């Protein structure tokens, strides 16, 4: 009998001890709130381990910075705000478990987070089940605010369509109309290529060909030789992570950048900083950039962030976390309520004030599909740059000029009756 009771007692002791420790780790609410005020809780599910840990860390730091500001400004409905962070390890199944835990056991009022599309899709579905507002910070797949849009889900980062449309015009007008693609052979790569190709066809350009590369390819030489033989104006490289490092290194060894423009869709500051010097080149899209000298509040944000993050400058991911937490507080304060339906309604059409938007053109959450219509920052990588001056923004493209309309992206929003 002893072994079973012992191991169950052990479980509860373990759980209890860990719960106490977890309680002390929740980011302390600051400000001048009466001790009797119960906090409003925001649950954040984001990768802290695994492939996307660095991107997750930026989102979390951004959200914490916003949390400080919100609490100093009086919190939500005069109550302090607490942020509870859970590790998703970029695993959609685990993310759903954590979301349920946050809602059912920690009783959070809102959910936010995610770096990868798969996690966003799974949380998108779980949040509707839990009847809790979920603000997708960083999973890009079109479906989240497209064919699978749900009344409980909003999104701060761009759609994949907006990423490609972000620099399509720039590339097409500047460098020419015949393009060749290096496409990683999975859903994300295919959908990016499809988006570029359809814009290219509409503009009167031509796809000369594409090389499908399996994930984890180390030797890209055969693909690069084919690309060179095709003699395109623009070589679009859609790989990511280690594949990006390897393909870019080899492309420079081949000297391809002398014969054609190398370009791609999304690039992130974290990834760029991790690239070896010889792989830093080409035209890409950032979703937010820290160096906007003419934009008020940006310099303050960068300075505060740097002190919080040990000298790191904020990336697009940091801004997603920052803007998302602010957006939830703004919407709840506007609704003067915390129930999901009221806050959803308040968030529809919500425009971010300049000190939160930190970019021009008044970004807002579009009511019809819950997508934030913000800007894209296309530009090129500074090959001889040093951190954080690694990227030059060529121009700022307003999201309203490139986002698909809700009818085009396939979102049919239905609300519970």
């Amino acid at each position, binding site marked *: 009998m002893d072994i079973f009771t012992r191991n169950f007692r052990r479980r509860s002791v373990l759980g209890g001890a*860990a719960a106490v420790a977890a309680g002390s780790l929740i980011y302390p609410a600051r400000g001048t709130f009466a001790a009797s005020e119960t906090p409003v809780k925001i649950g954040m599910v984001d990768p802290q381990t695994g492939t996307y840990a660095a991107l997750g860390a930026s989102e979390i730091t951004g959200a914490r910075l916003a949390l400080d500001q919100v609490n100093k400004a009086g919190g939500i409905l005069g109550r302090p705000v607490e942020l509870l962070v859970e*590790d998703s390890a970029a695993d959609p199944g685990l993310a759903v478990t954590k979301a349920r835990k946050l809602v*059912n056991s920690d009783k959070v009022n809102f959910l936010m987070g995610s770096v990868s599309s*798969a996690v966003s899709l799974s949380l998108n579905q779980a949040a509707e089940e839990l009847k809790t507002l979920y603000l997708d910070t960083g999973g890009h797949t079109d479906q989240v605010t497209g064919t699978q849009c749900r009344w409980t889900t909003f999104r701060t980062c761009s759609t994949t369509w907006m990423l490609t449309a972000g620099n399509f015009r720039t590339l097409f007008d500047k460098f020419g109309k015949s393009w060749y693609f290096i496409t990683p052979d999975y859903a994300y790569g295919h959908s990016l290529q499809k988006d570029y190709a359809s814009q290219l066809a509409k503009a009167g350009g031509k796809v000369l060909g594409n090389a499908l590369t399996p994930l984890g390819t180390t030797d890209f030489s055969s693909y690069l030789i084919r690309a060179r033989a095709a003699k395109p104006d623009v070589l679009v490289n859609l790989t990511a992570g280690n594949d990006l490092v390897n393909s870019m290194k080899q492309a420079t060894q081949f000297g391809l950048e002398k014969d054609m423009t190398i370009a791609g869709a999304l690039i992130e500051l974290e990834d760029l900083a991790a690239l070896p010097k010889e792989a830093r080149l080409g035209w890409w899209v950032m979703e937010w950039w820290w160096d906007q000298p003419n934009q008020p509040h940006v310099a303050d944000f960068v300075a505060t962030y740097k002190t919080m993050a040990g000298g790191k400058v904020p990336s697009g991911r940091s801004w997603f976390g920052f803007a998302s937490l602010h957006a939830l507080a703004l919407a709840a304060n506007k609704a003067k309520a915390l129930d999901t339906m009221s806050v959803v309604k308040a968030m529809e059409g919500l425009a971010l004030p300049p000190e939160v938007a930190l970019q021009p053109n008044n970004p807002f959450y579009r009511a019809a599909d819950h997508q934030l219509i913000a800007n894209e920052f296309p530009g090129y990588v500074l090959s001889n740059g040093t951190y954080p001056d690694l990227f030059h923004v060529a121009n700022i493209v307003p999201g309203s000029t490139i986002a698909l309309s809700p009818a085009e992206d396939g979102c049919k929003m239905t609300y519970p009756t």
Partner: protein
Amino acid sequence: MSVETEARPRSRAGLALPGDEKLRFAIFAVLLLAAPFWLPLVGSYTDLGTRVLVYALAAMGLNLLLGFTGGLSFGHAAYFGLGAYGTGLMLRYVGPNMWLAVLAGVLLGGVAATLLGPLVMKRRGIYFAMITIAFGQMFYFIAVRWNNFTGGEDGLTGFQREPLALPGGAIHLTTVPFYYFVLAFFAVGAFVLWWVLNSPLGHAMVGARENARRLEFLGVRVERLTWIAFAISGFVTALAGSMSALLNNFTSPLDLYWQLSGYFVIICVLGGMRNFWGPFLGAAIYVLMQDYASSVTKNWLSVIGLMFILVVLFFPRGLLGVLARRRSA
């Protein structure tokens, strides 16, 4: 492999149920049945209990092969994931029938294991482990590449638990009813494993682990035994996968990935792979760690890794194995 060369003849530790074992089992069963009531009291929640059951069933399925037959499979996530995809695809494309969905998952994973068994059973030791990884990754890449059917990298969405059709009417599987739904299937899976292990077939499997050559001299076809163990193990793990898809209302290629196979092995070793309930204890520790420790520190995997190293170094029979031996000593 140490698993196979172990000479100590303790073949049936923890299998039969004499005397006080019965009482112990009864307490265990009552605790499981009452879990939705006591879990919230100790600061936990029902879904966590469901998750323990899912991982425990998967690991117990694997353990028939790993702990009792002596085959180190590093590819059991494949059958877990196939179970999940079978169930998800059935609900998504065919119809909202839970029984059919579970059946589809179990058959998809189980039949795949049965068909691959003949290719696996001839290998020994490290080659056995490698070929199981290879088959596992094969299914992973199929799920990633077959975008328009499986949802590819993004995972399979668009299905959810449906009301369960029973003779007395339909039950809505909200959190607590779903726990009992999973517990029922867990009981079926565990009973099948227990029954196999207590049959002559199960004794032969343990014999194969202890001394395969001797068993062959006695006229037992060890390869066929391995095949049967592999197939049964695949069916049980697929059942766990099917439950996992219903728990999350979601499945993704990560459910087929080698990393998950590795976690199943860790769960078995941690809890004690020579003990029938060892993987259950291992799964409880793993899930609790994943849930609580990961809220506290992002280095929760290091904690599990450290525990794994300590267990391998100091308690090679796993935590439950140590407790059981101390009791019998």
